[in-house]
């Protein structure tokens, strides 16, 4: 075995002789017995082994489960082969696209979104209240006051995000906080 071959052996298998291929171990040990350069390479390989040994990789099964959870949390329960462009399935984007070149400061994002949310809430509630009022007036519906009160409360400026969430209304960009 040459010194270069010994170096290649160490590069692949590290400095622990027991992990070297059986058919090359004896030749490597003979070289080691006669070459200080080989001994130097072995010392380097063992030093790298010691550094690598400080790392404990996460449990592979747990890692896989966590990776699945993260991808799912990003908005989809399945992945696609993106090499086939026609089959690309996009996650629903939580971030509303802005026109090119109009990236607004992040600090302003919550205020803009709150305003939009409040506006759409008022519009939706007003339309629903009008519909309900019309229904009552023509006697085609037997509505109790409670849904009307709930709608009025929902559309009030003081409605919290949590209440909106419970109501099922979409809140765009809720998690678009500054990093």
């Amino acid at each position: 075995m040459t010194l270069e071959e010994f170096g290649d052996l160490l590069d692949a298998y590290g400095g622990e002789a027991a992990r070297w291929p059986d058919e090359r171990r004896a030749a490597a040990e003979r070289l080691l017995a006669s070459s200080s350069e080989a001994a130097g390479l072995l010392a380097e390989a063992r030093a790298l082994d010691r550094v690598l040994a400080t790392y404990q990789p996460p449990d592979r099964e747990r890692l896989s489960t966590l990776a699945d959870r993260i991808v799912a949390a990003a908005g989809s329960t399945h992945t696609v082969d993106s090499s086939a462009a026609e089959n690309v399935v996009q996650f629903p984007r939580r971030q509303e696209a802005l026109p090119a070149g109009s990236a607004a400061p992040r600090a302003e994002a919550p205020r803009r979104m709150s305003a939009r949310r409040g506006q759409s809430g008022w519009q939706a509630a007003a339309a629903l209240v009008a519909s309900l009022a019309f229904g009552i007036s023509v006697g085609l519906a037997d509505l109790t006051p409670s849904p009307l009160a709930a709608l009025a409360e929902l559309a009030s400026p003081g409605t919290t995000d949590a209440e909106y969430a419970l109501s099922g209304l979409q809140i765009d960009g809720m998690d678009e906080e500054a990093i």
Partner: protein
Amino acid sequence: MRTMLARAGDHGQAALSQAVEDGQLLVRLAAGDSAAFRLVVQRYLPLLLTVARRTLRDETEAEDVAQEALLRLWRNAGDLELGPGGFKPWLRRVVGNLCIDRVRARRHMAVVDEVPEVPEAATQETSLVEQDLSVRVADALATLPERQRLAVTLFHFEGQGQGEVAQRLGISEEAVESLLARARRSLKAELKDEWRELLPDVRDAP
């Protein structure tokens, strides 16, 4: 025999390749490509877990932090501009900030009785050094191409034999040796400051 310079050159090439690959992935993330996001998660999750675990010393909290960092990448992909380091510096910074937030939150709940009366200085120091090294190793592993990383994980960290690794990857034993050698050369170049510290007689060498 390859010189250290040549190996460092190989590593620089690998880092550049990584940055280019991350740039391409970023474009796909911004377009909402879930497969691209999975690739990013698979590549960086072990590193982020190691970094978070080192600070928080709590597996569940570390997982939460790593998850949040990756989801922030996903949500902000359209606004990010990557530097030459690719995703890694950005993700590490986010994980670092999230860990700091959690440590600060813990301080509010700290109980004096939990502080040991006799600090175990030597043990703690050793442990911190090892944890720093483990982060550096995780960092270096994250720069490896997927198959190299898997091969080195199976062989060196899980102790599987060459035949088992070959079977797992569906390749020949010769191909496993090639993967392992390329992976380990990259790691050796990336971690040279660390392993050379363990060689007292060459520490002062130029």
